[in-house]
């Protein structure tokens, strides 16, 4: 049987539910010294919810196993890949995820304007926009405009980071 996305989803649900029931709830929920009724306990609801997730995952897996047994031949035809995508295209979301992590880690130190400017300079060419006359103005002006809007109009204290001394003069 091939590992289709319903089976992966089922495994994820079962895995999460089992992990929560076995580890996350016992170690992640602090119990008060005395609880009058079991249903009032802080862990009662989480146990119900997480057990339910595991049961749903198991049902999904059983359904898929039964369906695979019924349509074995048909599934083999359907499993043929429709398009051959390059490894680069398939890997691009992971590059973006790495960029998201880099953005998060540098936001406070470099400040929102500089971090997102650098982020746009990396993200736009990655998306296919390589014209400097488009990338440069968007990357420079958009973060600055957003910073000014949130700081001046919405009065939110957006961190300026290393450019704070400059941004405060605007």
């Amino acid at each position, binding site marked *: 049987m091939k590992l289709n996305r319903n089976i992966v989803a089922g495994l994820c649900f079962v895995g999460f539910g089992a992990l929560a029931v076995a580890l996350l709830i016992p170690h992640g929920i602090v119990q008060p010294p005395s609880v009058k009724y079991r249903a009032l306990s802080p862990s009662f609801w989480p146990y119900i919810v997480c057990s339910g997730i595991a049961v749903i995952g198991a*049902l999904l897996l059983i359904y898929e196993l039964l369906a695979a047994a019924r349509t074995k031949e048909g599934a083999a035809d359907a499993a043929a890949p429709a398009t051959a995508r390059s490894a680069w295209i398939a890997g691009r979301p992971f590059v973006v995820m790495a960029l998201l992590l880099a953005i998060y880690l540098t936001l406070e130190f470099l400040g929102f304007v500089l971090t997102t400017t650098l982020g746009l300079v990396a993200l736009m060419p990655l998306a296919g926009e390589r014209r400097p006359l488009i990338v440069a103005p968007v990357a420079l002006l958009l973060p600055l405009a957003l910073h000014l809007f949130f700081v001046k109009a*919405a009065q939110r204290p957006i961190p300026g980071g290393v450019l704070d001394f400059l941004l405060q003069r605007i």
Partner: protein
Amino acid sequence: MWETLAASFAMFAQIDNVVALFAGVMIGTVIGAIPGMTTPMGVALALPFTFTMQPITGILLLLGVYKGGLYGGSITAILINAPGTPAASCTGLDGYPLARKGEARRALDMALYASCTADFISNLSLIFFAGILASFALSFGSPEFFTLIVFSLTIIASVSGDDLLKGLGAAGLGLALAIVGLDAIFGTPRFNFGNFDLMGGLNFIPVLIGLFAIPEVLNFYSKTEAAQKLSALAGRGASLLDYRRAFKTILRGSAIGVILGVIPGIGGAPAAFLSYSEARRTSKNQGNFGKGELEGVAAAEAGNNGVAGATLIPLLALGVPGDIITAIILGAFMIHDLRPGPLMFQQNITLIYALFIGIMLSSAYLFIVGKLSIRSIARIADIPQRILFPVVLVLCVFGAYAINNTIFDVLVMFVMGIVGFGMLRLGIPAAPFLIAFILGPLLEDNFRRSLRLGDGDWTIFFQGWITWFFWGLTVLTLVLIVWQRIKGKSRIPLGDGG
């Protein structure tokens, strides 16, 4: 009576009031359309400006921001799948697919028409049924709330599309995520693992931006250039025929919005999803829901805006704020030495009627502001995606931070984005996750409060006609869902076959 009405009209018909209301609707629409800028934030920001105004002018400004914000949230939900409010995420279910088909303007038009109609109906209900509806809302205790939310969770079946089990699993994950924070009864930490930022639980907005907008961005990067090309924005807006076809849905959604709106603490999101669910259940184009059905946009917006006038009913009639926004508006009343409630109807009836006149006019203003903005805003859909998506990402970063001024919310948004991308790849619908995440705390709190009230006796969930009414509706809905699934079994598989 007529003298009072004339005095109220004279009180309202000042240029300050007319301008303040219009400005409020415009500000609200813009704020609602920006991811990260919430309507309560907009109303709170506008509050200090009302201190020096006349009471009627200040309150009308705040009401304008409120009403504009409710509609504005749908704009980015339709155009870039980054809902400005939790309720707007329901509009995005069909609005965004319509925008991707090049029908953004049609979807925006329908959202506007449904919003204005529902807002108008909600205002009428405020004026004519304030007393009756307020007493109905007062009869809601924890058991009634619990059964209402159980009934609301049946929406999950509708928004799960063809993948009911995956939808239920996603809802379970949403409920699990809603547990994070401090226990509502004992105050003990749950799933915090010593992290201070998790003490207050996860904020809605970073979660919903992460769940809806970021996966779209990541998904965009996983496609080839050819696959990214979309049809250009078609110039046609929603026609009168479109509106007439969706009229019944809009009326039903408005009624749902009004009924849920009067109950304190419910808000627009459950009303939008419940209206959507009902529209899908009764529609001839059931299979098209979630893929770009105009009726779905109308249903969501009608439910969302139907609460607008109704939430003012408990505020004006009883002095009880139903949500954060009405709590801020209550603050505005009190700043001007006014105390909403039964006494206000006796002592300040002129002001109440003047407010009613302004509220009715706000529906017309909403239409004008919406119509003016759609033409320019819809052009966002024309921006090439290779520019639009990186820009959306940056907008989301600023927006997620601006909610609570914490970098942690940006991290939450990114993590939820990656989770959402995984869900997208596995065909797990995001909407049930969000509904359960929104309703989860209400469900658990009312469940436990009821049991405490009933001294551990479970029969408390079956006391009074309201609980029986909602249990009945829940059972009826579940039976209908099962029947529809059995009827369509030969056509619709339970899973998507991978």
